[in-house]
C-alpha cells in the first residue's frame, strides 16, 4: 500500500504490515532529511503533493512491484509538510521469501516513486533562501 502522511512516519506500524510467516527476508529504505545538498546547508524542507494523483501513481507503483518481483508485501509512505534535519521523508518496506527479490523490489519502488509520484521538495537553506529541487530524470 502507498500512503501519504502529514505527521512523522511511523516506521514500526508500516513494518508490521509486511510481516508474514512465509517471508524469509525484509528490506527497508528510509530517506532522511540531510543537512546539506548541492553544496548548500539545508535547515529544513517542505514537501507538497498533488495528493489525489500521488496516491494513485504511488499505488500503481506498488502493484507494478508486486507483479514484477517475487515478493509478499510491499509498503511505501511519503511524508508531506515541514520536515527538519533527520526527519524521515520516505519509508519503503518489502518482504519476500528470498532476499534478492526484496532488495530489488525495494529499490524499484524507491526509484520509481522519486521519479513519478507528484511530490515536490522545497529546501530551506541556512542563508534564508529556498529552492525547488528536481530529481534527476
Amino acid at each position, binding site marked *: 500500500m502507498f500512503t501519504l502522511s502529514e505527521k512523522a512516519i511511523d516506521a514500526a506500524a508500516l513494518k508490521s504490515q509486511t510481516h508474514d510467516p512465509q517471508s524469509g527476508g525484509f528490506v527497508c529504505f528510509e530517506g532522511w532529511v540531510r543537512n546539506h545538498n548541492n553544496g548548500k546547508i539545508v535547515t529544513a524542507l517542505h514537501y507538497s503533493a498533488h495528493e489525489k494523483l500521488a496516491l494513485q501513481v504511488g499505488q500503481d507503483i506498488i502493484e507494478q512491484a508486486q507483479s514484477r518481483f517475487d515478493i509478499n508485501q510491499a509498503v511505501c509512505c511519503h511524508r508531506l509538510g515541514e520536515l527538519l534535519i533527520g526527519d524521515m521523508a520516505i519509508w519503503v518496506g518489502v518482504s519476500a521469501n528470498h532476499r534478492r527479490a526484496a532488495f530489488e523490489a525495494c529499490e524499484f519502488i524507491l526509484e520509481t516513486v522519486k521519479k513519478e509520484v507528484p511530490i515536490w521538495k522545497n529546501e530551506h537553506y541556512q542563508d534564508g533562501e529556498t529552492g*525547488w529541487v*528536481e*530529481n534527476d*530524470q
Partner: protein
Amino acid sequence: MINIKIELYGRLIGLFGQDHIFWQTQANSTMKALYQSLCQTHQVDDSIKGIKPVINDTFVDWNNEFQSGDVLGFLPPASGG
C-alpha cells in the same frame, strides 16, 4: 469566453508567484496553448518539457481541450523521496 481554475505545483509555484490562477480564455483551446499564453502573460520563460498537464485530477495530453468550469493543473517533474 470561459472561466477555468489553474493549479500550479512545485517549482511552477515559484515561477508564477502563486499556486493557483483564475483565468478567462476562449473555448476550444488546448492545454498546450493555454500554458503558453499563461507563460506569456506572466512573462515567464518556460517550456512544456517535463511538465504534465492535468484536467480535473486526471493526466491528459497536451492536445486535450478543456471546458468551462474545469480545474486544470500543471505538474513539474517530481522531486519526492
